[in-house]
């Protein structure tokens, strides 16, 4: 490959000298045209002051200077640099420059160059993707990339070395090349500057792995001496439960499970929780969530809660255009009496529009009250992003948000404060959305064997309670055999169904009367919330608590629950049974004789059905845009008239005036006429 270049040079009378040998030879070649070279190098030097940012410019100035000093020297320099580049740059670059033959003189140069432009022919491989000049540019820009530490680049450094060599005219520079290089670098070294090689800089290297190890170590520092077995804390034995899950293929891995266990223990002692259970894991795009369901011992309201919403007061929203009746009704439904009072005062201040504003006749539904400590919000949920990380408490479910969460389908990102942007607008943080999904999943997939829970019949009669009937653990529960566990009718829901309204107990949003709860099975009735009269709103109802899961609606054509043995070969009495939900893929319950446990591992999305249509999430259609006023053909309520033109108006006025004059003339001069006349004016 050097042959071609050699031909070039000899034909252009530079001198013999193999290009492949060291710079000294090239130097000799270059001595006769030294001035021009120095020009070149000087130009390069000048350009090194810049940050190597304008790479294109540089290469063009290079080319320009090449033009002036002649192609040969330019070529030589390029070759020179290429060779030394080859020494110092990556193997890849070398390959690049070696695989292709020598770069020709830049072909993009305009043609005023008078010297013989030798078209050097090479054997370019047919499928070479880049042209030679472009390869050169690529190589150059690569060299011009600044190193991060020192903010210089190879290209500049090389040119400086060459300049120093040429300045000092050292013989055998190749032997002391390295020393020369260090010398050049030394000149640039500024101690204690921010970017210098950090001899004097104290660098605190924190590797991520180290930090992670620190976090995990803390988990292990549990003070076990203080904990007593009967502290009132119900801590699940996660290790043996996870054994069960492993049979079903649902494990998170022994290491992770153990660490989660330790982390949960720590959470329990910190917050003083009565009982807890590992609910599951939800995947997010950036980070995942580990979720723990907990029951609190006492009222503890002063901890930071994620997703706490300042419920917007309906009055503030509606800009004071309400009936007074509405105000009264809302009073009943207010959560905080204080806010109510404040708002009433504000209301009266806001009212008094200057012109009569039409009053809205449609009653907006009130904000539904949150269920606190019961029903859907019976348990608290804590989440953490990674094992060993801090636990965040999630706020209670807000019924409206739950309604909307049914209509949207969004991935979790892993950031609790992330705003969910969707249609219909969710207007909440990811923490709220997460909590809604957790609630829905729990309500739909928390199951237990028949007989484990029974209705608590001590507290009054069922009809009077507002919430779902409380259930307690059956102390006389006899474990079902494994065969029976396989049968889906032996499993029942033990978490109340969430009504379309977003709560487990019906609440009339218009609040005129307290409707009794309808606990019949079967048909659900949607509350028609846009009726004008509250009496027409019908209560919503859903399946009763403790109904067997075999009666759940089918998921199109596949059953909504599937049960199977976990192993093919084990005998039935030792074989754990795994019950999976198809509606919420990822929700599983595993049972073995008397032990059972549920978990959810997945991305928190519901599977709506089995047909090809249901795979597509069809968002709520946009509301109708306002149409223009449609004129009723039958009754012309509005008629258009053309405004009279000026002439017509004048004519009209003159007519009137004439008529008056006629009147005046008709009547004899009386006072009335005069008065009329003056009135007319």
């Amino acid at each position, binding site marked *: 490959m050097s042959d071609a270049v050699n031909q070039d040079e000899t034909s252009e009378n530079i001198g013999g000298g193999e290009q492949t040998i060291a710079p000294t030879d090239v130097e000799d070649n270059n001595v006769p045209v030294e001035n021009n070279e120095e020009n070149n190098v000087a130009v390069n030097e000048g350009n090194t002051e810049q940050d190597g940012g304008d790479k294109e410019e540089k290469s063009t100035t290079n080319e320009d200077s090449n033009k002036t000093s002649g192609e040969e020297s330019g070529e030589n320099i390029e070759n020179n640099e290429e060779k030394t580049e080859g020494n110092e740059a990556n193997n*890849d670059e070398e390959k690049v420059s070696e695989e292709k033959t020598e770069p020709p003189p830049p072909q993009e140069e305009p043609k005023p160059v008078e010297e013989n432009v030798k078209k050097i022919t090479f054997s370019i491989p047919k499928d070479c993707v880049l042209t030679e000049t472009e390869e050169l540019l690529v190589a150059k*820009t690569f060299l011009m990339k600044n190193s991060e530490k020192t903010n210089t680049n190879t290209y500049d450094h090389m040119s400086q070395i060459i300049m120093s060599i040429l300045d000092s005219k050292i013989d055998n520079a190749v032997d002391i090349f390295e020393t020369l290089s260090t010398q050049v670098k030394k000149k640039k070294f500024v101690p204690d500057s921010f970017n210098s090689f950090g001899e004097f800089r104290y660098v605190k290297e924190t590797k991520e792995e180290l930090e992670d190890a620190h976090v995990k170590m803390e988990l292990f520092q549990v003070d076990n001496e203080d904990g007593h077995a009967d502290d009132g804390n119900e801590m699940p034995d996660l290790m043996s439960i996870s054994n069960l899950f492993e049979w079903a293929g649902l494990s998170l891995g022994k290491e992770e499970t153990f660490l989660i266990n330790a982390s949960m223990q720590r959470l329990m002692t910190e917050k003083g929780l009565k009982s807890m259970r590992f609910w599951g894991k939800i995947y997010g795009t*950036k980070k995942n969530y580990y979720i723990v369901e907990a029951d609190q011992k006492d009222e503890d309201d002063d901890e930071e809660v994620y997703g706490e919403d300042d419920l917007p007061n309906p009055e503030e929203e509606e800009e004071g255009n309400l009936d007074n009746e509405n105000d009264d009704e809302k009073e009943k439904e207010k959560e905080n009496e204080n806010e109510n009072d404040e708002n009433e005062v504000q209301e009266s201040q806001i009212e008094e529009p200057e012109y009569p504003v039409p009053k809205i006749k449609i009653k907006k539904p009130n904000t539904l009250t949150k269920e606190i400590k019961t029903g859907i919000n019976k348990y608290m949920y804590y989440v953490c992003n990674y094992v060993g990380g801090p636990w965040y408490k999630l706020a209670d479910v807000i019924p409206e948000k739950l309604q909307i969460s049914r209509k949207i389908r*969004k*991935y979790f990102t892993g950031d609790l404060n992330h705003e969910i942007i969707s249609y219909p607008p969710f207007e909440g943080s990811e923490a709220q959305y997460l909590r809604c999904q957790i609630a829905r999943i729990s309500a739909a997939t928390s199951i237990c064997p028949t007989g484990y829970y029974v209705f608590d019949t001590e507290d009054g009669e069922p009809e009077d309670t507002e919430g779902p009937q409380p259930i307690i653990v059956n102390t006389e529960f006899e474990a079902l055999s494994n065969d029976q566990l396989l049968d889906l009718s032996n499993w029942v829901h033990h978490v109340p169904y969430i009504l379309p309204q977003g709560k487990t107990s019906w609440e009339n949003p218009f609040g005129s009367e307290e409707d009794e709860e309808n606990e019949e099975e079967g048909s659900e009735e949607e509350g028609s919330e846009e009726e004008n009269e509250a009496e027409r709103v019908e209560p919503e109802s859903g399946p009763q608590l403790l109904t067997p899961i075999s009666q759940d609606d089918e998921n199109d054509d*596949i059953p909504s629950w599937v049960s199977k043995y976990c192993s093919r070969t084990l005998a039935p009495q030792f074989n754990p049974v795994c019950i999976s939900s198809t509606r919420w893929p990822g929700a599983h319950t595993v049972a073995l004789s008397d032990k059972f446990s549920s978990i959810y591992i997945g991305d928190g*999305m519901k599977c709506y059905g089995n047909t090809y249509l249901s*795979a597509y999430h069809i968002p709520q259609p946009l509301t109708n845009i306002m149409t223009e006023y449609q004129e009723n053909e039958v009754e012309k309520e509005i008629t258009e008239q053309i405004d009279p033109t000026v002439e017509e108006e004048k004519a009209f006025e003159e007519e009137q005036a004439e008529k008056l004059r006629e009147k005046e003339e008709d009547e004899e001069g009386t006072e009335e006429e005069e008065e009329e006349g003056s009135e007319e004016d």
Partner: protein
Amino acid sequence: LWGRILGVQKDYFIAQCWNDDIFDRKYFYSTDTITWLQLPEITEEELKDISQIYSRFIGDPSYEYQLPNPNQPQEKEPINEEKRLSGVIKMINYDVEIIPRGSYYQDRLKKIHFNYKFKGLSEKEMIDLTSYFHFRSGFKLSLDTIEDRIDIDQSIDIFDNIEKDKPDGTWSLQVEHGGSTITLKSLLWPGYFFFHTPRTAMRQCKFGSMYNGYGIKNVNLGIML
């Protein structure tokens, strides 16, 4: 083991095997990891039909699917689950199978080899999506700007970069274990994940991927992000 496709009643384990030509692969499936059956090859038309099916896999290989739009006369055989398996695997492989940059290289005869000396990606490269490629044929080196090109090495940049996958964010990259492992999950085919542990002084470089999911493409990806 290529992965596992969960069906309603039973799951399928899929094994993948190949010879010299890495793009020509054969697949075997099994419901109980003991008896393995080979999956049939499918044609383009069948592939189109299969991509219309969005129901769950049942678990019975001979189950036949009713296609939603039977425009064509019923000359073709209805799609049965075996064929659907085969089609789904093909689609998944085309869409999401990835490898780290540098793990395969191309020699002068344009043949692709596995790089036994691959040591893994550096810390910075690990978290950058551009260091991962789609493992599929039909790649054209794109040379837009010079800046792009300086990093290209023709011997290892032989596949499509996953950075350009639309929509943005369809790959979820997570660092586990304090930075020692990387997992890349695909949101387009939920259940496909790829992991990579770069080599350090103490451990070997590993990477691998597999599919563990329901075999249903996530068509709602755009609105879910």
